[in-house]
């Protein structure tokens, strides 16, 4: 398995990256590469251009902003996992990031990359949604904030425009009661279904094209999860009920 041919770009500033994204046709941003490179290896993704942002300095910070935690585009999941600030201000994010794949993957993978990749079974988008966080998108046209509730629009689809770079995700403080629970076949696999609780809010993942907010008293309402070799739709609905109980018992 070899990646298809592409033209490789390694900008050294956010401005340069945005200029490339606005001028190139069919470009993909390469951050941690833990989702994109498998897609390239399988040739499920065949972008004409790769814009590797790893050479951009000072884009890997994890810092306190507006009472919550801002995670920049190149902050690795392992850095978030080890961050004292995240542990203190946003323990829900810490709990969630530890469910993402394995430590060796988290050494490269980024939080912002998981959000942009927007896999429906991914934990971090559901956490951003449950916490009512947002992302910051930059382009040559300027900067804009996209709330989590608007950001995820379909399977691996977000509101990010082709010329925009997600430079930062913001997670509000999660000092209230929280829990995250998921069921997967093996440790580190994508979840068959998962639930995130923050206070009275409940977000589900793995059971719809995007993470969804749900009513804790009727969590399966309106859900039509897909079935595959690993789980039938009925089993996923069953998991939603069990996991909802579990996160609210926590």
């Amino acid at each position, binding site marked *: 398995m070899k990646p298809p041919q592409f033209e490789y770009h390694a900008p050294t500033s956010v401005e340069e990256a945005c200029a490339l994204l606005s001028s190139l046709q069919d470009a993909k941003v390469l951050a941690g590469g833990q989702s994109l490179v498998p897609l390239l*290896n399988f040739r499920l993704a065949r972008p004409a251009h790769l814009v590797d942002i*790893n050479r951009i300095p000072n884009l890997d910070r994890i810092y306190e902003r507006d009472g919550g935690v801002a995670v920049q585009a190149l902050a690795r999941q392992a850095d978030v996992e080890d961050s004292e600030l995240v542990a203190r201000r946003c323990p829900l994010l810490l709990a969630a990031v530890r469910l993402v794949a394995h430590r*060796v993957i988290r*050494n490269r993978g980024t939080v912002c990359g998981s959000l942009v990749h927007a896999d429906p079974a991914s934990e971090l988008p559901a956490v951003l949604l449950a916490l009512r966080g947002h992302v910051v998108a930059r382009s040559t046209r300027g900067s804009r904030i996209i709330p989590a509730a608007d950001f995820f629009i379909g399977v691996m689809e977000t509101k990010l425009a082709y010329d925009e770079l997600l430079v930062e995700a913001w997670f509000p403080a999660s000092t209230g009661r929280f829990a995250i629970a998921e069921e997967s076949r093996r440790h580190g696999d994508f979840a068959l279904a998962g639930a995130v609780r923050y206070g009275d809010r409940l977000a589900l993942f793995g059971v719809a094209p995007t993470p969804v907010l749900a009513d804790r008293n009727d969590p399966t309402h309106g859900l039509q999860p897909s079935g595959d070799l690993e789980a039938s739709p009925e089993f996923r609905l069953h998991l939603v009920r069990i996991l909802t109980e579990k996160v609210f018992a926590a």
Partner: protein
Amino acid sequence: MKVNGIAHPAPADPRRLLSDHLRHDLGLTGTHVGCEHGVCGCCTVLLDGAPVRSCLMLAVQAEGHEVTTIEGLAAPGAPLHPVQQAFHECHGLQCGFCTPGFVMSVVGLLHEHPDPSPEQVDEGISGNLCRCTGYASIRRAVRRAAELSKQ
């Protein structure tokens, strides 16, 4: 990039994976390639000291960084690295295909947790697949490696 302490130019073709670069261009075939999508862990190497999947990195991305492969842990003829020695003593392998990846992951694990709890051991090796051993001897090898590393 530096591989096991020796400087090498990055490959000209940007689509060259780091795993293929190590094996085919540099002849470092100790890094094994299993699934080529990040699941099996066979291709794990150290990037600036931290274990990463070499099949999920482009070789050009390692430019300016330090890569350590299984060949870099101990020089030929020199005593084995403590983690290698522990896998040897505890027979933490059978066919050996997954072993270089396990060893590199465990080097990373012990760097972060020099005295890992059983849970940390399981978590630390959970990203590597072994189809032979049933993992029991590998777990023992990790404990032994922690002891040997302290000596």
